[in-house]
């Protein structure tokens, strides 16, 4: 590097330091700092930088200094055992061995040392014939005359001969202190002559810089927001999705018989408090009851059992997103229409790398007078393109209690290969006809968690609700 380039790379501190050194002799950091008008830490850094740039010559010399050991530092904070003993005796002048150990917080070894030293200095006496210690007048004088605190303070300035005992006790040690001094060299002096030509300092643009953690949305939220946006772009309207629902919406409206095994305790959560919710108006209740018992106004035979309102009124944390579609069928349904919900759902599972106890389901339906099975397949194909970037799809027969026919969608994801992307089907006539809905409704659900895990680059599903702040801070923005 030429001199001009070196001059341009110098910081203000280095420039000032170099000037301060010019024409002079060796300086240590404190001397340099004072002369250059910078702090001692800055001077130390400048020394290192200038040495690296070969503008100064560095010399190191060792000096023996006294310093506190770790034990000594501790004793300085808490007081030496002998001092603690005297301090305690200054309050209560005569104490038994045991009391004194307690009051001065001394262990047996510390007590022995303190007893020996204080006795030697005649600060204390042992009361003859008794296991008791009493402070002497000499001891009191010593305490009252003691102004500078502990014998351990200011140890650096003491002479080795004064602290022989403390060294033996491992409180003080001799340390070799390396002192660095620098002296400007010929290139340094030449660079000073170049400083006048420097207009702007050039930074080391390759160096490390401090990290900034920005504020941002949780990655899974970012992903769900993009799903929400895509669905609205496809014409879907977002539904109300409460966390707690009546079994009526989770099961009954969906034509799931009340003794169906999927309604058992092992498959869904139920509530202890509150227990029961309100059901919609009598007409709707009767329509659902009839659907279950006899098929109602539909041509179906129904399930042939006696349907109970009390069971339908039971409350539960929503177990699937279709519960919200069920509510929509009853409240403010517009035909034709497209609906969706991204809903938090709950299942009594164990939390592990592949299971969540709470998860999000993305479900909805399309309702219209002239919808048919081909439209169902068409909708699924569109979902495969929109959500998985998949042109190739396969349809498999599937089963849901509330749809017939039912279809499972497999899509060929460009990175993941064939994946089960979602389920779908046409709502059963027992539901639609009894609720007085004309036409067909195509219900669907997309398995968004798998896609989210792919987008977020995670293998452990728990990271969707990540508890790892570093991971969240370092996560990239979710781009569509």
């Amino acid at each position: 590097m030429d001199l001009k380039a070196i001059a341009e790379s110098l910081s203000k501190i280095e420039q000032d330091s170099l000037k301060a050194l010019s024409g002079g002799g060796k300086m240590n950091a404190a001397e340099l700092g004072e002369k250059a008008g910078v702090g001692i830490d800055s001077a130390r850094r400048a020394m290192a930088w200038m040495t690296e740039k070969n503008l100064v010559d560095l010399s190191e010399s060792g000096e023996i200094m006294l310093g506190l050991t770790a034990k000594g530092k501790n004793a300085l904070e808490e007081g030496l055992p002998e001092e603690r003993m005297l301090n305690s005796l200054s309050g209560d002048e005569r104490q038994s061995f045991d009391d004194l150990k307690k009051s001065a917080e001394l262990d047996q070894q510390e007590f022995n040392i303190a007893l020996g030293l204080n006795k030697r200095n005649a600060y204390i006496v042992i009361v003859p014939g008794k296991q008791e210690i009493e402070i002497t007048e000499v001891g009191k004088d010593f305490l009252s005359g003691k102004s500078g605190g502990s014998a351990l303070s200011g140890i650096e300035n003491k002479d080795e001969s004064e602290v022989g005992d403390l060294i033996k006790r491992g409180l003080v040690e001799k340390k070799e202190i390396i002192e660095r001094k620098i002296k400007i060299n010929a290139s340094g002096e030449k660079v000073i002559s170049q400083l006048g030509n420097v207009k702007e300092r050039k930074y080391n643009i390759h160096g490390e810089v401090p990290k900034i953690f920005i504020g941002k949305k949780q990655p899974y939220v970012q992903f769900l927001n993009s799903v929400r946006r895509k669905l609205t772009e496809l014409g879907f309207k977002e539904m109300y999705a409460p966390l707690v629902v009546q079994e009526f919406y989770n099961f009954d409206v969906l034509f799931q018989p009340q003794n169906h095994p999927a309604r058992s305790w092992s498959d869904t959560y139920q509530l202890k408090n509150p227990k029961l919710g309100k059901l919609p108006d009598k007409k709707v209740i009767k329509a659902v009851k009839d659907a279950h018992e006899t098929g109602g106004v539909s041509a179906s035979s129904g399930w042939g059992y006696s349907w109970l309102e009390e069971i339908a009124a039971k409350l539960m944390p929503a177990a699937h997103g279709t519960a919200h579609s069920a509510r929509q069928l009853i409240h403010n349904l517009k035909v034709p229409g497209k609906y969706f919900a991204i809903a938090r759902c709950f299942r009594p599972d164990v939390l592990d790398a592949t299971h969540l106890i709470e998860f999000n389901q993305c479900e909805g339906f399309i309702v219209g007078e002239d919808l048919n099975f081909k439209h169902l397949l068409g909708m699924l194909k569109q979902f495969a393109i929109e959500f998985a970037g998949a042109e190739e799809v396969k349809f498999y027969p599937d089963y849901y209690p509330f749809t017939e026919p039912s279809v499972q969608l497999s899509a060929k994801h460009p990175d993941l290969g064939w994946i089960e992307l979602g389920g779908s089907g046409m709502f059963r006539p027992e539901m639609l006809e009894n609720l007085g809905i004309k036409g067909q409704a195509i219900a669907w659900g997309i398995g968004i968690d798998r896609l989210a895990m792919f987008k977020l680059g995670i293998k452990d599903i728990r990271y969707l609700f990540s508890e790892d702040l570093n991971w969240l801070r370092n996560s990239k923005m979710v781009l569509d």
Partner: protein
Amino acid sequence: MPTVEVEKKDLEKLIGKKFSKQELEDALMYVKGEVDAWEGNLIKVDMKDTNRPDLWSSEGIARELKGRLGIRKGLPEYKVKKSGISAEVDSGLKNIRPKAAYAIAKGVKVTDEFIRQMVQLQEKICMTFGRKRDEVAIGLFDLDQVHGNVRYYAADKGEEFIPLEYKVKMRLDEILQEHPKGKEYGHLIAKFDKFPLLTDSKGDVLSMPPIINSAGSGKITEKTRNLFVDVTGFNQEKINTALKIICMALADRGGKIESVEIKHKGKKLTTPEFGTKKISVDLDSARKMSGIDFSNKQFLSLIRKSGMVGKIKGKKAEVTYADYRRDIIHAVDVIEDILISEGFNSIKPEQVEMDVIGHEREESIYLDKVRDVCVGLGLQEILTFVLSSRERQEEKIGLKGEKFVELANPVSLNWVIMRKRLYPEHLGFLFRNKNADYPQRIFEIGRALELGPGNETGVEEKEKLCIVVSDRRFGFTQMKSVLDAVCSNLGIKYSISDSGNPAFEKGKSGEISMGKKRGVLGEINQKTLNEFGLEMPVSVMEIEL
């Protein structure tokens, strides 16, 4: 959804056709079966349709595939001869377990695979279709050890027999208390004074339904040639269906099925009886719903492929199907079957043309705006669970006797209630991130639930914003600035009053009011920090949105 294990070679033998692995996986879609795993030649198949118990065995899968693959056309048919054996069903069982159905299968060749399939089918039917033996319980017996006619009655608890797995006689009530099956299923009959018992003409016990068979005739071995089948429950039609499914599987293995005459309250009933049912399908509606303009002939051909037969009468088709198909309760169930026979993947998808406008809920839009404000403040969003524990939501923050929305059947002590507030979850989050760089600045927007007796669900679901900062140089004043920034950017007016919240530092915390909405703000006190194992100072604000 039951998972069924089938052996590939055995299945191929039953169908009469060999498959590659891929061909078999593709064919299984006809029975809504999804391969869960291959273990050598053993396939574990998830059977999705919970209303088709007839498919839950190799025999059942083979029966369905034979139709769909064109090896058999139309209805599967099974012949039944009279056995001459009768069964008396006592009316004393009325409330206990009143219904029974019986059959006999002769000349069965018992192999390992046969036993495995029969045990599996029996178990799947009893567990899923039979609601854990409550509605259907099945017993298989060595007919050659059954003497004469049988009698099913409500027996005294003091009667005795040797149950399977045991060597000594046990009283019926002892079986309930001591036998593993008694402990597992005893609750189904325990409350009655008498228990169901099936005996032969010599008085030897066959079984105590729905608990356990006897160690005598109830033990099937490779030497067994002739079988007696017993099904009990509450609904005659349901147990008849279960009996027929078992008999079809036995017949598919070469068994000759014979019927038993049941005498009950002076009436006679013969089981099994393979019948058919009819359903009318409106052809125009079928065409409209499927979107396929099939001819009548095509329709009938698809019907036969689906294991049914049909006749066209004007604009309707009269479809006849085997009466064990209890899943067919509406014409759509037939339409699905013909679409499956047609093959979903050979039907051309069509775009939905619908002139509607999509939009998010206003709440979603608003909450995302709040998120934008928080991101602008440099906060990292986190997500926590709604399910929580009393320990976190109450004890650790110094509260007692709080009312929560509470689960009736929690599976873990960690997830018992639904959260009422977000910040305790965030204090837990901070604990798990003590090694991450400070300052730590996080937020969450999420639901918090309270009891709301006036509401439809008795629950009030509130959207809350929680902001938590852990930093030595960040306290009440800084958090109030944050609150101020959030509220002024969202146009919310608020006032602050003194807080008595035990989780917060007195004098450095406040209650927030925003009209009817509430919130809390301040520095978390040392006691609460200790409860959560935190060393750095923490400030919190949480408001209803």
